[in-house]
């Protein structure tokens, strides 16, 4: 059985979808290990402009001087970075002819999430016809976006077609020196997404539809760059509610967002990487650096995230509120079950006057998991009248899990107001019995209660995402109460 599962894992993660974002590189594989030669190899294979290689090499040289951080409230065996493969051949071709051949358990999960059949096939690695709907949908989307001047493509494509934008903005929010994993990513990143919203344009679509498709295909070291010019608006959705199983254990992504004057960016994530088996074996380590900057006055960026997957999550989507009157928001639901570990939160750096930030974090822990909120609210000397409100709630299921809150507050001027509220609660036997007595089974009851608890955050998600996220929360917590 274990062998069969392993095969399925491999095959699932080896699935390929060639109509979403896709880099048109014919690939072979770099030998394991990480040297300057590996980086030159990657850059050459991708036919990158010279500045990109220089950036990668600088990052690599810096990374070599760093030590892996150990301050997060997580524990894992040491990673041998020389054992990893930093550039791999395109994913294998689909192995299945139809869905009947796929692991029924996986299909059941897809069914519960309500994922359309075509996408199920794709996610599970079943061959799909070239006439699949999303191809035409995809091209319609591209046309609409082009009409508005919105650029939305893979990072590799952007490097070829818009090198100036990349050169100007890449590393401007998350410098390659930022932290251990950011340096590593800067040196070896494989691909990612690029979005550019021109001045005054309200992006007519949620930049999302590709993503479920694309998510099955994401690389180990992704890089996302979003630029919102003055007065523009975009809602960007990343991730996938379907469980993404991947043989790559370490995922170290970078997301950078730049919002100019009067621009607004909404960034929503649903993260459901493979958390490993019940013992946490084989799960993905998700060490991500996400940061946005409200560069111009009155800009606004919000992060909304639903984190249910990964063996270990280490992630602090942060915002630098540089312009005056800028607004930063962070809404998070982080679920851990079995032996998952999550150390997640945000940083709000207030630099401009009258800047405002809101943090709502809802941690849910079940099984023997550990769930930590770690957040920094900092107001600079010139950030007059800066305001922050933070609310960090923890919900415990059962009595073997842990919830921790590490708030850091650093106020640099007299007119700032920073508020922090925290609560910890448990799902009570009485609540469960009340639901059971109305005919709702245990699983449904936990789903209802947890979704009610997380409502304030889920309501910030775009509609279709929210519906999926609700189902996902219930599924993630199956078996969390004995």
């Amino acid at each position, binding site marked *: 059985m274990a062998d069969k599962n392993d095969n399925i894992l491999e095959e699932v993660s080896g699935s390929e979808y060639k109509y979403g974002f896709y880099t048109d590189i014919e690939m072979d594989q770099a030998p394991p290990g990480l040297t300057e030669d590996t980086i030159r190899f990657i850059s050459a294979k991708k036919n990158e402009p010279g500045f990109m290689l220089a950036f990668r090499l600088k990052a690599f040289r810096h990374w070599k001087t760093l030590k892996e951080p150990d301050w997060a409230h997580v524990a894992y065996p040491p990673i041998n970075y020389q054992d990893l493969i930093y550039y791999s051949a395109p994913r294998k071709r689909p192995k299945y002819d139809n869905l009947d051949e796929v692991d029924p358990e996986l299909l059941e999960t897809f069914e519960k999430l309500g994922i359309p059949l075509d996408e199920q096939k794709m996610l599970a690695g079943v061959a799909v016809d070239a006439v699949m709907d999303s191809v035409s949908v995809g091209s319609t989307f591209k046309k609409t976006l082009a009409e508005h001047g919105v650029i939305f493509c893979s990072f590799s494509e952007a490097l070829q077609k818009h090198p100036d934008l990349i050169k100007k903005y890449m590393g401007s929010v998350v410098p390659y020196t930022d932290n251990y994993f950011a340096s590593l990513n800067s040196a070896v990143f494989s691909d990612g997404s690029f979005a550019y919203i021109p001045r005054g344009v309200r992006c007519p679509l949620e930049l999302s539809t590709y993503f479920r498709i694309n998510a099955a295909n994401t690389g180990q070291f992704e890089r996302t760059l979003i630029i919102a010019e003055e007065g523009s608006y975009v809602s960007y959705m990343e991730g996938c509610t379907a469980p993404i199983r991947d043989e790559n254990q370490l995922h170290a992504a970078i997301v950078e967002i730049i919002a100019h004057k009067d621009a607004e960016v909404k960034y929503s994530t649903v993260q459901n990487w493979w958390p490993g088996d019940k013992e946490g074996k084989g799960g993905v380590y998700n060490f991500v650096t996400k940061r946005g900057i409200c560069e111009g006055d009155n800009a606004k960026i919000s992060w909304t995230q639903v984190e249910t997957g990964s063996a270990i999550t280490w992630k602090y989507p942060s915002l630098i509120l540089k312009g005056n009157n800028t607004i930063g928001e962070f809404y998070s639901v982080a679920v851990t079950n079995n032996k998952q570990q999550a150390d997640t939160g945000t940083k709000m750096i207030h630099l401009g006057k009258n800047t405002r930030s809101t943090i709502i974090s809802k941690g849910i822990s079940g099984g023997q998991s550990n769930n930590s909120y770690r957040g920094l609210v900092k107001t600079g000397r010139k950030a007059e009248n800066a305001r922050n409100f933070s609310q960090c709630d923890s919900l415990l299921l059962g009595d073997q899990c842990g919830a921790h809150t590490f708030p850091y507050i650093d106020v640099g001027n007299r007119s700032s107001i920073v508020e922090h509220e925290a609560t910890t609660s448990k799902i*009570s036997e009485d609540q469960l019995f*009340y639901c*059971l007595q*109305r005919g709702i089974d245990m699983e*449904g009851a936990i789903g209802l209660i947890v979704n009610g608890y997380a409502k304030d955050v889920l309501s910030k998600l775009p509609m279709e995402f929210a519906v999926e996220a609700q189902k996902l929360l219930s599924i993630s917590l199956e078996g969390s109460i004995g």
Partner: protein
Amino acid sequence: MLRVKNLTVSIHGKPIIKGLNLEVNEGEVHAIMGPNGSGKSTLASVIAGHKMFDVDKGEISYMGKNIFDMPAETRAREGIFLGFQYPVEIPGVSIANFMRTAINEKRKYLGLDPLTGAEFLKLMEEKKKMVEIHSKLANRSVNEGFSGGEKKKNEIFQMAMLEPRLAILDETDSGLDIDALKVVANGVNKLRRKDNATVLITHYQRLLDYIVPDFVHILYDGRIIKSGNKELAMELEEKGYDWIRKETATGAA
């Protein structure tokens, strides 16, 4: 419909119900009265399937089936409803969502299609009228920030929505002012049918002025020691529980 035979129940080794017999048939309304600690709420919880209690002896059958073979949610889907004495709050879950989930779970169990949004809303409006709830109650989170009276009305509303075959109302009248009491009683009366049954668990005779029971049982120290009709409740009201205590003592001696 419901047959309780020689039921003995304990919690943490302490006996609470000590050989209780009860039979409830379709179309009947029973009132179970008794002083604090006599085992009224325990009986209700055991019938509904709460796991906190140990059933040491005895049988309970419902519609001819052994109730102990069914988990709590199955009992509910089979038509047993418990109106809670202390309804819990479920923050963030609207009553509409809660009820829709419950109704569709029941329908699924019965092999029926789930109600569509429109059908559900129509049903909800109808039942709200029936039990005289005019507020925007259904949009509020389950029992969150409700007054005592609102919580109890909400129980009756849920009962109306779920149309149980056997409704057990555990002290639904306690803590209600006279107007709320009337609303609750009217609701129960309207829901009364030939093919369903109601068990009212209550402290006071007051509720029985509005809901006329077919049978009144007096539960004392884990046993039903006296059964009768409405007159018994009047007599109890007049003479107080001391009367029962004395009678029992005499009987035992």
